[in-house]
């Protein structure tokens, strides 16, 4: 995997960023603010254009919920860079998870909307935070039920490491070293993934969360 985080060498690359950069509520650290997210998605859009000759085959498939606003931004970027209207799909991976057996409560299902056929398309899965690789594995299985893509590539805004499966992320917004028990979240204002977004790390936060 390419280490694209070199392009933002300092942990706080955006010196001009918001005050939230410091320490907001519940001990969480903002590791990527809205400006940083936009820059990362601009760069990723350029990389997608660079690596894919036939942009008309592209199909951005977001893993909800975090992947959805990121895919929209990527589509917007691709439109302005390459004048290409890229289809966006939403693919919930919950029914394909490998941990449903062991969980006491069944997780809530999220929306799936696949407006276009998958066959012969270059599908770019878009997720907010990549870690174990299990969500991407589930997303690939789900995708194959919709058809036979020409190829599949993966975008993650943040790669936090701790991979448990042989999954490669093709486009990484930022590599963020974490401890396994840390919780890494993409969040917006008032719990909505609209408007300005940021990525926060809550040290030890994974114990309470089951994500």
């Amino acid at each position, binding site marked *: 995997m390419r280490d694209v985080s070199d392009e933002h060498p300092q942990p706080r690359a955006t010196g001009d960023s918001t005050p939230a950069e410091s320490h907001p509520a519940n001990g969480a650290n903002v590791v990527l603010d809205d400006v940083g997210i936009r820059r990362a998605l601009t760069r990723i859009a350029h990389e997608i254009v660079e690596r894919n000759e036939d942009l008309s085959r592209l199909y951005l498939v977001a893993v909800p919920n975090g992947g959805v606003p990121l895919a929209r931004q990527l589509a917007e970027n691709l439109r302005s860079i390459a004048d290409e209207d890229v289809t966006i799909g939403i693919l*919930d991976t919950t*029914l*394909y998870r490998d941990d*449903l*057996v062991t969980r*006491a*409560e*069944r997780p*809530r*299902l*999220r*929306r*799936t*909307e696949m407006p276009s056929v998958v066959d012969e398309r270059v599908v770019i899965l878009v997720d907010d935070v990549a870690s174990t690789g299990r969500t991407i594995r589930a997303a690939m*299985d*789900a995708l194959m*039920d*919709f*058809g036979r893509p020409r190829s599949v590539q993966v975008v993650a805004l943040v790669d936090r490491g701790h991979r448990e499966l042989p999954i490669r992320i093709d486009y990484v917004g930022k590599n963020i070293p974490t401890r396994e028990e840390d919780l890494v979240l993409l969040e917006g204002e008032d719990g909505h993934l609209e408007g300005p977004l940021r990525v926060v790390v809550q040290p030890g936060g994974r114990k309470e969360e089951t994500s």
Partner: protein
Amino acid sequence: MIATDLIGIESLERGDIELILETAERMQELGERQVKKVPTLRGRTIVNLFFEPSTRTRTSFEIAGKRLSADVINFSTSSSSLSKRESILDTARTLDAMQPDAVVVRHDVAGVPKRIADVLAAPVINAGDGAHEHPTQALLDLLTVKQEKGRIDGLTVTIVGDIVHSRVARSNIYGFLKMGAEVRVAGPPTMLPPAVETLGVKAFTSMREALEGADVVMALRIQLEREAGALFPSIREYAETFGLSRASLRFAKDDAIVMHPGPVNRGVELSHDLADHRPSVILDQVRNGVALRMAVLYLLAGRERAAEEEEAR
């Protein structure tokens, strides 16, 4: 979900109903795919334990289980050979030893699913017990109304027919009331439970009054063999007084929908043209039944009983 079993709507919280409906709405998308199967319940076993003949409900559960990749076993038996309480529980214990992950029970005696749940480790889903409840039917009706009307809260729902003997009516009364609708029941006096108004519904013997301003009209199936002559003088008279037609429907709201749990006695509960065309949504109900039962199986199958529940048994 708080409980392990789905025995009736009466014991559900509004939040439980909302979770089931939301899950079912997500499941509907699967029905539109070419490959309609997901691996969610792979390696799980669901037993359809039907003591009363049923093709529609059993098939709906069977398709739902199979779309989630569960192995579905149909265990049908007539209730006459199992009329003794001991033998029902023996059957349940035998089944339990086979370690199913969910058991779907239908029986013509009220309370049997609950009794079976008391001896089974696996979650029990009631698929209709006597005149008690038929929770998945009510939930699929709620789902259908929610999708047709965009809401349930504040609607007026009129249920027409044999209210006193109908588990569909009872489950729907609980369900629609919990979701904030106004519920009316209508039928000949012999078909209305004596103190039905204590449930929180309004009872009518006049169709015109019952339908006035209704958003949803639900006709119940008349058991022709059993009821004609006993509860009402003749089928023809019932059809003329309580049968729904485009003419009687004019008292309801202009955009009212017509529902029926099926199978319809054409020309009795519904006129022929109503049975097949909008505003009736009968086939949507059937379609939603699969998604709804997938939701229930997803939420319950394979779940362990909570420790306190285990102790209480």
